[in-house]
């Protein structure tokens, strides 16, 4: 607060009465919609310029983009399929962010989660029914991911190691561990070209949601987001996390166990990314191999930022980017544009949306009344 605000609003000025209940909330909500919408328009305009430069019609492009992403049941399925892992890896950023940590190692947790999920059932193949094996795989994936990011939290709390750097380093270590295991001790000799672990077998693999080609990771992701939202905004633990993330000094002064809260958030975050790794193995690959390193973790970071680390906003943002990815094929076929076109579009959107953060708080229209200087 500025010095001048000391005299601020005093009782009896009448402002309290003048303002409808929750007016500030509405203003803030409007800002959260208006700023990203504006940024998306800017991104679309920039990209249209690129398309015009290439002699393409932006209108045709965006029409195809819409059709390829959300235009039919088929494109919806494709979109949701791509969104599923992003939802869970975005949670891996959003949860620690609420506790004040900037973790960017979801990719590593995704990889170790997938690896653990692929290894765990191998000794029991044929000995236990598929649902039991799947439960075991899911538990192993979540546990591995949780420990992976949990280590980041412990290093931060105990040794003051910056979580951004340590989680990035751990990502590379995770990839090396994966390469070592799938090309070394755990390699299935039947996979000469693409070294993989022993496959879990088609009968163990998780079938898609009935009547669709979408796998259950989408449901798990949305459920996880709802749970994360409830944890953060409806439970006392979440309340404590918000205090610790908002102002660690205040949290300490209230006797809250800041370190434990940080580690808890990291464990849950890693669990979410590990679960995404499990779904990738259980529904797509059927084994662990380098295909697990597909950049979901990194895109998840951006999804979480664009959702402003709000768990309920993650699924829509993930679906938006899933849709852009899903439309790539159609755009390539119809317009003859390179398939990287959508990657470029994504990049432009990421940059403009993140840059638009600077616009928050700049327009008086959206500000709470009490914060405005009085005339």
């Amino acid at each position, binding site marked *: 607060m500025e010095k001048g605000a000391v005299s601020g609003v005093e009782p009896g000025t009448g402002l309290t009465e003048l303002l409808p209940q929750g007016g500030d909330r509405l203003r803030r909500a409007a800002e959260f919609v208006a700023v990203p919408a504006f940024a998306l328009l800017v991104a679309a305009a920039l990209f249209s310029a690129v398309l015009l430069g290439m002699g393409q019609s932006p209108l045709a492009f965006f029409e195809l983009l819409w059709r390829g992403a959300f235009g039919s049941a088929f494109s919806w399925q494709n979109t949701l399929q791509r969104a599923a892992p992003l939802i869970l890896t975005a949670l891996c950023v959003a949860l620690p962010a609420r506790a004040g940590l900037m973790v*960017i190692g979801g990719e590593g947790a995704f990889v170790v989660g997938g690896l653990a999920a692929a290894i765990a059932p191998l000794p029991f193949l044929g000995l236990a029914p598929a649902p039991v094996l799947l439960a075991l795989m899911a538990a192993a994936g979540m546990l591995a991911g949780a420990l992976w990011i949990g280590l980041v939290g412990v290093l931060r709390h105990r040794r003051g190691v910056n979580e951004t750097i340590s989680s990035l380093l751990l990502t590379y*270590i995770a990839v090396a561990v994966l*390469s070592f295991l799938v090309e070394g001790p755990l390699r299935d000799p039947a996979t000469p070209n693409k070294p993989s672990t022993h496959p879990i077998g088609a009968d163990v693999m998780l079938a898609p949601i009935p009547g669709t080609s979408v796998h259950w990771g989408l449901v798990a992701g949305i459920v996880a987001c709802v749970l994360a939202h409830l944890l953060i905004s409806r439970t006392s633990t979440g309340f404590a996390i918000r205090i610790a993330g908002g102002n660690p000094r205040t949290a300490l002064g209230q006797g809250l166990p800041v370190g434990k809260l940080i580690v808890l958030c990291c464990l849950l975050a890693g669990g979410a990314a590990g679960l995404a790794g499990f779904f990738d193995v259980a529904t797509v690959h059927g084994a662990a191999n380098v295909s697990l390193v597909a950049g979901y973790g990194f895109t998840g970071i951006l999804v979480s930022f664009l959702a402003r680390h709000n768990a309920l906003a993650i699924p829509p943002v993930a679906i938006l980017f899933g849709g852009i990815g899903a439309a790539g094929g159609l755009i390539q076929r119809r317009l003859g544009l390179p398939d990287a076109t959508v990657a470029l579009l994504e990049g432009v959107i990421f940059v403009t949306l993140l840059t638009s953060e600077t616009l928050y708080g700049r327009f008086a229209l959206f500000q709470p009344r009490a914060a405005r200087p009085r005339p």
Partner: protein
Amino acid sequence: MTDTGVITVLIALLAGAIRVSTPFLFVSLGECLTEKSGRVNLGLEGTLVLGAMVAFAISYHSGSPWLGVAAAAGAGFLMGALHGAICRLPRVNDIAIGIAMMSFGTGLALFLGKPYIQPSAPRLPSLPLGDWLDMPALAQMLDVSPLFLVGLALAFLLDWVFRNTRAGLIVRVTGDDAAAARALGIGVDRVRLFATALGGASAGVGGAFLSLYYPGSWNEGLSSGQGLMAVALVIFARWQPRRCLLASLFFGAASALGPALQSVGITAGYYFLNAAPYVLTLLIMAGSGSARRAAQYAPGELSINR
């Protein structure tokens, strides 16, 4: 293993280390310069890939690989300037912007680079430093890229600039204490913008090495994350350009050790060597009592050290 085997491994290791380390060297020097000014650029991976693509395309069209290198530096400069210009805005998170720029740079490179995947472009020449040997196999391994020598010179140059020029001192002051810099009349934002842009240019040259020397072609999977690891390299190098050289050679050697061992028939286990530099960096950061010691080398304004 015979003596010849050992020598072969060692020389292959050295040659491999030099070859693999060159892109590491350029990105780490670029990141070092950027971080010395007090800002982090996590987006050098995108710059590296874009630099590779631009270098290849320009070399293909002009027939001059050196023109390609210059163009890559120019593209990197622009990417860095964009990063710097965005990060000076209030409330913008430099970590997130870095990752977004990585995505943007890679996307742009793949988008523009589609037509260049098939053709071959004139490559950078190599300097045969091993000709005096009477073993052609070994001599071939000792062919050194002129870009490695440029990087070598750049490391020493940067070191000299930081110590012996007003510009270098200004960058260090800016990175260490923005308030003190402002008190000296230094335009903090402008210094960081330039440092980030020049850092990007260096990373662009690193990309040119990938597409014009080793592996020496342009394709979508060209980079294996060298750009992203720049941050780790710079921590490892304690923010000193000459140590960046050592760190790059070490990271390069660790990556080269695998293929070298493979060449003498050892195939298993070496993937852990790939992870060694990262594990070591993590241990350095977490090592008992050294957290404070490590932090004293870091520029005071750096967000990742708070």
